[in-house]
């Protein structure tokens, strides 16, 4: 497979995964803005997904303005509109490597976001319905990948991109959510706060089944970092990066392969042999920073060894 094609498939997949995480986060945040039991703020969402963008900082708690900025904001490089455009550009340049069904699915997603009706609905109607329409587009995408894409090298790169993006997202979300406890210690015991965090990661139901004693920060941390069965946990994502990377083994590039395997294996062990207790001993922020930097290291190594961008 061409290095450029591998890179495009990888990025296509990262962007879609990012849009999925964002949409779910926006939906839950909007819902929680409607029952402001605690001091509601959009600030963490903007910080996680839009970085230190200036315009994002000026929006305050005007939900409609934030949604507009995050979904269809032209100047926000990480708005759904912009990342879907990028995902589609990547797909366009590798059209013969994805199925026609998948290409059409991406096109529809793109045209749905571009539709002027969406902008109107986002301003005047129920934003949750609008976000649901978009979330459904992502689900269609994943279903189409599952049903139509060949189980080859291309899909391995797509999966590596997907799980890498997911792991980074989960780490960022934890970092932001746990970070803001320092500013507001009351949150540590605020049930709604943790409930919303779990909802935005789609892990609420699993949490209820696993833990019977109500919402505890420790338990949330355990589920999001260490639970092998939770599809958005850091360990689950890293296991999958390892699993799909393993399939790229090929006799002609053993050296590159070994170097990558080493990096992934080290990260995997690091998380696998941690517990909530050891994480707290070394300090949660330090732990998360290290995991994040190792994830970035894997992304950079892929770039260098597989995408011919040194």
């Amino acid at each position, binding site marked *: 497979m061409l290095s450029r094609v591998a890179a495009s498939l990888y990025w296509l997949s990262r962007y879609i995964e990012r849009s999925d995480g964002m949409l779910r986060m926006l939906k839950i945040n909007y819902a929680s803005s409607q029952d402001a039991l605690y001091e509601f703020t959009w600030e963490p969402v903007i910080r996680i997904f839009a970085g230190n963008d200036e315009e994002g900082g000026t929006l305050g708690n005007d939900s409609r303005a934030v949604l507009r900025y995050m979904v269809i904001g032209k100047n926000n490089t990480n708005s759904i509109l912009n990342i879907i455009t990028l995902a589609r550009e990547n797909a*366009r340049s590798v059209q*013969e490597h994805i199925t026609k069904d998948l290409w*059409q699915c991406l096109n529809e997603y793109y*045209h749905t976001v571009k539709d002027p009706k969406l902008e109107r609905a986002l301003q005047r109607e129920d934003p949750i319905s609008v976000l649901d329409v978009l979330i459904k587009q992502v689900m269609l995408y994943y279903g189409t990948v599952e049903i139509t894409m060949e189980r080859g090298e291309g899909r391995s790169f797509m999966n590596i991109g997907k799980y890498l993006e997911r792991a980074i997202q989960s780490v960022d979300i934890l970092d932001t959510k746990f970070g803001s406890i320092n500013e507001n210690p009351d949150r540590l015991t605020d049930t709604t706060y943790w409930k919303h965090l779990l909802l935005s990661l789609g892990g609420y139901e699993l949490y209820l089944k696993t833990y019977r004693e109500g919402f505890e920060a420790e338990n949330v941390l355990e589920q999001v970092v260490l639970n092998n069965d939770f599809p958005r946990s850091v360990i689950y994502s890293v296991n999958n990066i390892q699993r799909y990377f393993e399939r790229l083994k090929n006799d002609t*590039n053993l050296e590159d392969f070994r170097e990558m395997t080493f990096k992934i294996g080290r990260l995997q062990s690091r998380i696998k042999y941690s517990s909530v207790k050891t994480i707290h001993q070394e300090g949660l922020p330090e732990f998360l920073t290290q995991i994040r930097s190792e994830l970035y290291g894997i992304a950079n190594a892929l770039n260098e060894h597989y995408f011919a961008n040194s």
Partner: protein
Amino acid sequence: MQELAYFDRYAPIGGVWDEMYGADSNIRDHYRKVIEYISRESADDLNRKEELAKRLFMSQGITFTVYNSGEGIEKIFPFDIIPRIITAAEWAFVEKGIKQRLTALNLFLKDIYHNQFIIKDGIVPIDIIYSCPHFLREMYQLQVPYDIYVHISGIDLIRDHDGTFYVLEDNLRTPSGVSYMLENREITKRLFPDLLPQCGVRSVTEYPSILYKNLMALSPRQIAHPTIVLLSPGIYNSAYFEHTTLARLMGVELVEGRDLVVNNHKVYMKTTVGLQQVDVIYRRVDDEYLDPLVFNPSSMLGVAGIMGAYRKGNVAIVNAIGNGVADDKAIYTYVPEMIKYYLNEEPILKNVPTYQLGNHDEREHVFKSLHKMVVKRTNGSGGYGMLMGHAASEEEIDDYKKEIIKEPRSFIAQPTISLSAAPCYMQGELQPRRIDLRPYALYGPDGIQIVPGGLTRVALKEGSLVVNSSQGGGSKDTWVLAP
């Protein structure tokens, strides 16, 4: 006759060959079934079909992007739902004519890049060859596989007022539009269910497999699975959709210049498992941009050193480099003589009479009757920089004359040919619009094959004679009926 309502309200253009409307004011037989079919549909139904066609093009991403104030706007090429129909007899004639013409043009390219007998025998003047910017000395004495230069051609045909076919242009470099031949057919299947088999329309789906077979045959390495790639300028090229469609239909790798690298006169592509040698390149990048070491040094679309690999015979390039000398508009005039010279046959397809403005007498003659002429640049394409004498003002004509006098070799003139008309669906009615025809011929080691069909381009503006998509043209599905 209720069932032909759309036909009864149809007003053909006087003095123009109409593909549907016969001389006796009757419908031509080969159009009858289609008109009967659509006459059973109300205008609302047809409008819905038009909408469906647009939606299908859009959701399949068969679009091109217009960049306006920093924002990309997706557009589709206009498509007219009424098919253009060609009878078996007409097709047999066209097919024979194109095969003959293409054989001669291919022999001409071989000759002009080797012994140049045609110049020595005084058939084609030497200055017209050497002044052609597309004549590439780099191709001199270069051996191409099977002596085939024009693997893929799209010769443009038009019909005069009496229905005679004329060749308007020979496109022998990287003719585009074949994906529209294929996609238009797919759309028609959805718009008019069951109509295609009822009418006995020949299939066009074989095109990608024939092309693939021909490309395989050109591989310099005799191995089971040669690497064939389609070289595209990238996603910002207006024909990018076509490049991906063809790559997908043939199952070949779509590459850009930056994916390829030349080492020791061999071309490789950069893959996730290292370099892989490339055997055949179907390139959709123009000669000029192909190799920055030989042609345009600022080109980012090409591959440095590719020409050396080609010259060594380590890679086959399709179409051959330097074909532009054979489809130059000044050399076009000599094609009938070429056919006689190389094949000892009378040309089957006629040329449009063409005046060389480099020639003093012909220029004087043209200047006297410019309002009846179409003047074109010899190296122009896409309908740009043309003078349509019948529609131009005195001022425009004077300005154009000044341009011509600056470099007369760069211009030719042709009398205005009227172009045949075909019915198009316009706001609830059928109306005549001017059309041309571009069949795609594939020249492989086993000979020339032409898929029964082609691209019919249509001038959608009322009264317009320009069918180019850049000038408000659209396209139609093109049916060739079985004998």
